């Protein structure tokens, strides 16, 4: 009985690989785009312009305050009403990128705020331009605060990518859902799906923990 099911599962491994590929691709693309956008937003958020900062803050709150599933539905079903036709894949990428950017924006902003003002003033006094100040003085120091939660955010992003299966993208979770219709063993099928995610996420969780410990130590040294 269990043999038959295993055989039948083994038969659907091309589908599983495609699902894993889809999950990785979705996560990777939105991770890169979301990080770039998130850093940009985070810098603008702390940039001193009240209006820009509060607009970004309000948008971040909207995104943090609503379930990701609802955001996907909104993007997938409502943007077409504005004349923007989207495939499920593009809609998924937009939703995930937006989500990642909002969370990363707050992480980056917190990092930048943690840099003592004296540092910025010293940079100003040395005649560094705005861009130089950001790139050579503020960001390198902010990274110590930013890096551990940033990696943690990537884990969340990979996990959230499972929700796009709701608009019909064949990612790893969707594959599990499809396979369980044929092989009626939910425990086994979704255990394997879980293993798939675990292989991708667990190394990142370990990395985040290590970074946290190392950055904490580095911080301690400075305080001494």
């Amino acid at each position, binding site marked *: 009985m269990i043999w038959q099911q295993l055989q039948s599962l083994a038969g659907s491994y091309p589908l599983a690989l495609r699902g894993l590929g889809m999950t990785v691709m979705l996560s990777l693309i939105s991770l890169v785009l979301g990080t770039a956008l998130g850093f940009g937003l985070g810098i603008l958020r702390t940039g001193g312009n009240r209006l820009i900062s509060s607009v970004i803050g309000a948008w971040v*709150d*909207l995104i*943090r*305050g*609503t*379930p*990701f*599933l*609802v*955001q996907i*539905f*909104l993007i997938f*079903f*409502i943007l077409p*009403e*504005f*004349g923007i036709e989207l495939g499920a894949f593009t809609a998924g990428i937009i939703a995930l990128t937006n989500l990642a950017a909002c969370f990363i924006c707050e992480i980056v902003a*917190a990092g930048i705020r943690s840099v003592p003002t004296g540092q910025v003033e010293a940079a100003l006094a040395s005649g560094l331009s705005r861009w130089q100040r950001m790139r050579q003085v503020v960001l390198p120091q902010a990274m110590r605060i930013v890096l551990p*939660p940033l990696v943690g955010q990537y*884990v969340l992003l*990979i*996990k*959230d*990518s*499972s*929700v796009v*299966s*709701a608009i019909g993208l064949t990612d*790893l*979770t969707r594959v*599990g*859902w499809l396979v*369980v219709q044929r092989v*009626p*063993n*939910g*425990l086994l*099928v*979704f*255990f394997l*799906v*879980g293993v798939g*995610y*675990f292989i991708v*996420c*667990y190394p990142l*969780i370990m990395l985040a923990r290590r970074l946290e410990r190392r950055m904490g130590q580095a911080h301690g040294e400075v305080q001494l």
Partner: protein
Amino acid sequence: MLENFSFRTIIEYLPLFGQGLITTVWLSALSFAGALAVGVVLAAMNLQRSQLFRVPAKAYIDAVRATPLLAQLYFLYFGLPRLGFVLPELVVGILALSLNSGAYIAEIIRAGILSIPRGQVEAGVASGMTYVLRMRLVILPQVFKVTIPPLLGQAIVLVKDSALLSLISVSELTRAGQLLASDRFMPAEGFLTIAAFYLLLYYCLKGLAGLSSRWLGLQPARSST
């Protein structure tokens, strides 16, 4: 464009939305209570010296944190009947949310307990307090204080996560939006309305988090949801 956005339809469906909102609130509350119980047990196991307790607790926490809630939900939804437990979708959903959030809450509680300086325990021992007395009078009041804000953060996450239960057809808030969207082909009305309701819940919990950290005399929490 949205020029034929129909407020009338929204009002017509308002009872459905109201029911969905109420369901979301109480199922989240119930799941949160369950998650607290799971979290306390896991944290207690994780703080034992014996590997016998620590290893399973750590393994469970890691397994939950490294896999998506949706996969966990389907695991229970399709897996439990196989073990002979045929439960209503709602119960499966509450179970999944409790087991998932419990792992995160365990880490919050553990961090809270570890944040108490060792000297506090030693002072308790030196004053001749028993373990129970130390826990009750020294450790737990302080743990309570530092864990309230992150626990409220987790409550926000839980309320949002509960939207996934619509995918196993629990009739909560998101399901109400889906019904309106599919019955009347009005996705804008359906999903924008439920987004507004979720925001309402979010701001309530966020306000509560802010108030609690002021009452507790902590820094105004940069909520990390």
